[in-house]
């Protein structure tokens, strides 16, 4: 059934409140089951053998000694994973990344796997596999990889160019001629990992009839099912995937890594196989975000009007081409109303792991270049940086830098909120600096399917297929309660397995509450139609004479108006005698997601002796469209800012001359801990998305976009020298001070 998705501006009774999340007690008591918490009788332990070389030809793999070891039940190489991808380049890249074929393309690339009765035996078996490598020249730096003569990583690519994407409008050269001031600067960002605490883990079973089951930590169990079935030649309907609780994903659990291998091992061994990545494997063998290198040029008139804006950003995709340059190119100038702008996103192959999405993928790098240069321009013009941005801000009706004309958007209100925030007026001390920056992200919708079932006691089971990565079960329970007119406590939301619902796209692109929220609204409305029919039956009146108000069926019209309303619980109690179970169901392609903007303020103190930066105060202002559960909206704002702080100050993949990763662990790759962070203050703005009944926009990603630049601006203001490379680690700050 088609429903009108347009925003209606309805008043809310339950939505917007802050009840406890339904999964909270399980998580704090340890009862919640994550990827590694499931076991099966007779299960084996699966382990992966990984390349110690950055780039090498695999001459031969001898598994004979491992196969003979007592307790080993299966050994796997690429020979066990034939190419069934039917010419699909993306699927083939996934297959090759899960298990190297003729070449190992990065340090940590999987080359073989074993399944054995215990971990100790599996480890011994790995040592017995003899791989003969022929080392090849490697390249891990994004700019070096584009130079003539650099080692070529994928034969099908032009050098190591994975793709080049241009966006914009107008004439940037003509715009430069109009400019009174031109600022030009180059920037770099380090490669970072999403840093989810739970490693990749799964339990795979394949029966003799070819039917399989996979228990897995993932952001998209339907996608995992489809990809694994394709790679292994299984029928989609014969592979049931159940998602565990997820201990963080942030984009890194949108792709398969060990899962097809675990299923292939289980099929070969005819026993369940459990695989759990070590932290070192997570760093080396899963998908971090890109490193980047970029050049920015902005021209402006003396009054601050930008006449020309250009950026080219080169993204290191790892060993396989991705869409990261394209995504970054679309986001670069999205906050501004520009007559002449151009952004170029370039995908570059390097001998590093296959990059995966990381929260607003590619946007933080572009924002670092753009928003840093905006601050440099403000300084040159002797203009307040917020005023400069407001002078050029995009509004409803502006042609975006990526093409379309904007509908109602929130960048101007976020900037005004920043301008008026007490944080901006608080005094600063010695060695302290303040910075601000803006950010943009698209958000997406996608395929979604939800079921809502009402028990005879009037409580409600809502089953959705989008993974709950940040409190979505609470938000969706609120939405169901709002629609049905019942208490939040009467709704229990669970994530269904792949056999229980139609396809749901992966929880990525900040789509979970937007799309499952829409499906929940319409599933509830369908259930209400059923209940109106049941009430009409109980009263013996036409269904047309029944309306639904505040959780009750109400008889309308002069003829029936004296009938007392029937509550949802009363109707549910009678359901066995009025037609059986009461349910609502909805499937939808939830398009029309609203774009999202944020502006951040940060204060830092830099120790000039050590170069260490302490974040003193941080404020996030972001447009949520409608905050269904404000606690979890604020949690997303804070989480993105915290990850951005780590990216800005500490986090970075460090490669040696040998092309091998030198800091594959949390001791040497330092994500922020509590003592590194102040309380992150938030301000939620609500500019409704016109294409969602409740006005919802995605909120999960935009908050990681501004921090790199906001902190860069703050540090530069604190030390008086422009920092143009993240992470702004103590040695880099000291060097910048020395060079000044």
């Amino acid at each position, binding site marked *: 059934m088609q429903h009108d998705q347009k925003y209606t501006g309805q008043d809310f009774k339950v939505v917007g409140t802050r009840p406890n999340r339904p999964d909270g007690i399980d998580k704090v008591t340890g009862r919640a089951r994550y990827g590694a918490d499931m076991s099966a009788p007779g299960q084996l332990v699966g382990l992966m053998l990984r390349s110690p070389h950055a780039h090498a030809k695999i001459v031969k793999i001898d598994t004979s000694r491992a196969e003979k070891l007592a307790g080993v039940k299966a050994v796997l190489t690429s020979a066990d994973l034939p190419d069934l991808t039917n010419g699909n380049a993306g699927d083939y890249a996934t297959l090759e990344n899960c298990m190297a074929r003729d070449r190992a393309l990065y340090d940590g690339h999987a080359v073989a796997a074993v399944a054995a009765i215990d971990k100790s035996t599996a480890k011994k078996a790995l040592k017995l596999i003899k791989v003969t490598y022929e080392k090849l020249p490697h390249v891990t730096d994004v700019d070096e990889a584009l130079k003539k003569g650099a080692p070529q990583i994928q034969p099908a690519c032009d050098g190591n160019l994975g793709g080049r994407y241009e966006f914009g409008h107008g004439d940037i050269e003509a715009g430069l001629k109009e400019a009174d001031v031109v600022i030009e600067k180059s920037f770099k960002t380090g490669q970072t990992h999403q840093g989810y605490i739970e490693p990749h883990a799964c339990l795979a079973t394949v029966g003799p009839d070819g039917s399989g089951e996979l228990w897995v930590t993932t952001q998209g169990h339907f996608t995992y099912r489809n990809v694994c079935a394709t790679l292994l030649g299984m029928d989609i309907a014969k592979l049931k995937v159940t998602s565990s609780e997820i201990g963080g994903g*942030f984009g890194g659990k949108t792709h398969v890594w060990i899962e097809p291998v675990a299923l292939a091992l289980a099929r070969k061994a005819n026993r369940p196989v459990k695989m759990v990545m070590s932290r070192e494997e997570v760093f080396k063998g899963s998908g971090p975000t890109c490193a980047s290198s970029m050049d920015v040029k902005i021209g402006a008139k003396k009054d601050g009007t930008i006449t020309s804006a250009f950026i080219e950003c080169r993204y290191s995709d790892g060993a396989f081409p991705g*869409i990261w340059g394209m995504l970054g*190119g*679309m986001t670069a100038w999205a906050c501004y109303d520009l007559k002449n702008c151009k952004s170029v996103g370039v995908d570059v192959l390097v001998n590093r792991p296959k990059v995966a999405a990381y929260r607003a993928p590619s946007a933080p790098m572009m924002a670092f270049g753009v928003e840093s240069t905006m601050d440099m321009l403000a300084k040159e013009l002797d203009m307040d940086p917020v005023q400069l941005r407001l002078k050029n801000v995009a509004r409803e009706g502006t042609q975006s830098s990526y093409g379309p004309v*904007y509908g109602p958007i929130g960048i101007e209100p976020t900037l005004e909120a920043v301008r008026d925030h007490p944080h901006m007026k608080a005094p600063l001390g010695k060695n302290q600096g303040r910075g601000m920056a803006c950010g943009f992200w698209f958000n997406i919708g996608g*395929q979604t399917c939800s079921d809502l079932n009402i028990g005879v006691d009037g409580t409600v089971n809502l089953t959705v297929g989008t993974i709950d990565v940040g409190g979505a079960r609470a938000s969706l329970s609120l939405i169901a309660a709002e629609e049905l007119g019942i208490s939040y406590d009467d709704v229990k939301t669970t994530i269904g397995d792949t056999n229980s619902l139609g396809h749901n796209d992966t929880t990525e692109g900040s789509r979970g509450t937007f799309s499952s929220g829409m499906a929940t609204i319409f599933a509830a409305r369908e259930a209400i139609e059923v209940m109106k029919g049941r009430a009409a039956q109980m009263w013996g009146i036409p269904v047309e004479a029944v309306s639904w108000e505040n959780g009750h069926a109400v008889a309308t019209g002069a003829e029936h108006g004296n009938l007392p309303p029937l509550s949802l619980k009363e109707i549910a109690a009678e359901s066995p005698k009025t037609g059986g179970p009461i349910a609502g169901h909805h499937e939808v*392609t939830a*398009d*029309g997601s609203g774009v999202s903007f944020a502006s951040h303020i940060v204060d830092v103190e830099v120790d000039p002796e050590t170069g260490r930066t302490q974040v003193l105060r941080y404020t996030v202002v972001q447009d949520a469209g409608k905050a269904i559960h404000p606690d979890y909206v604020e949690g997303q704002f804070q989480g993105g800012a915290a990850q951005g702080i780590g990216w800005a100050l500490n986090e970075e993949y460090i490669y040696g001359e040998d092309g091998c990763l030198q800091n594959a662990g949390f001791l040497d790759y330092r994500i922020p801990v509590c003592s590194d962070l102040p309380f992150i203050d938030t301000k939620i703005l609500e500019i409704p998305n016109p294409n969602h009944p409740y006005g919802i926009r995605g909120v999960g990603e935009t908050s990681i976009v501004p921090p790199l630049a906001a902190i860069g601006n703050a540090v530069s203001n604190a030390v008086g020298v422009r920092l143009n490379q993240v992470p702004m680690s103590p040695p880099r700050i000291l060097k910048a001070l020395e060079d000044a």
Partner: protein
Amino acid sequence: MQVGLSGPLRAAANGEASINIEAETIRELLNHLLERYPAMQQHMDIGIAVSIDGAIYRDNWATRIPEGSEVFLLPRIAGG
């Protein structure tokens, strides 16, 4: 109606930044686009998103395009 093309799609449409196509739905729009510019198939395989009056549609090809709408074609967007 005039349909804007974002940078990466222009090469497949002989470098045009904007083209004229008559269509009532996204499906009709994309079908006519492909008939006229077969090179657009490579972008269709990866995915094309359609912006209608600023709202982005990635998948629902049955979506009607209101008369007078601002229509812009983009590469398909993903996220984390």
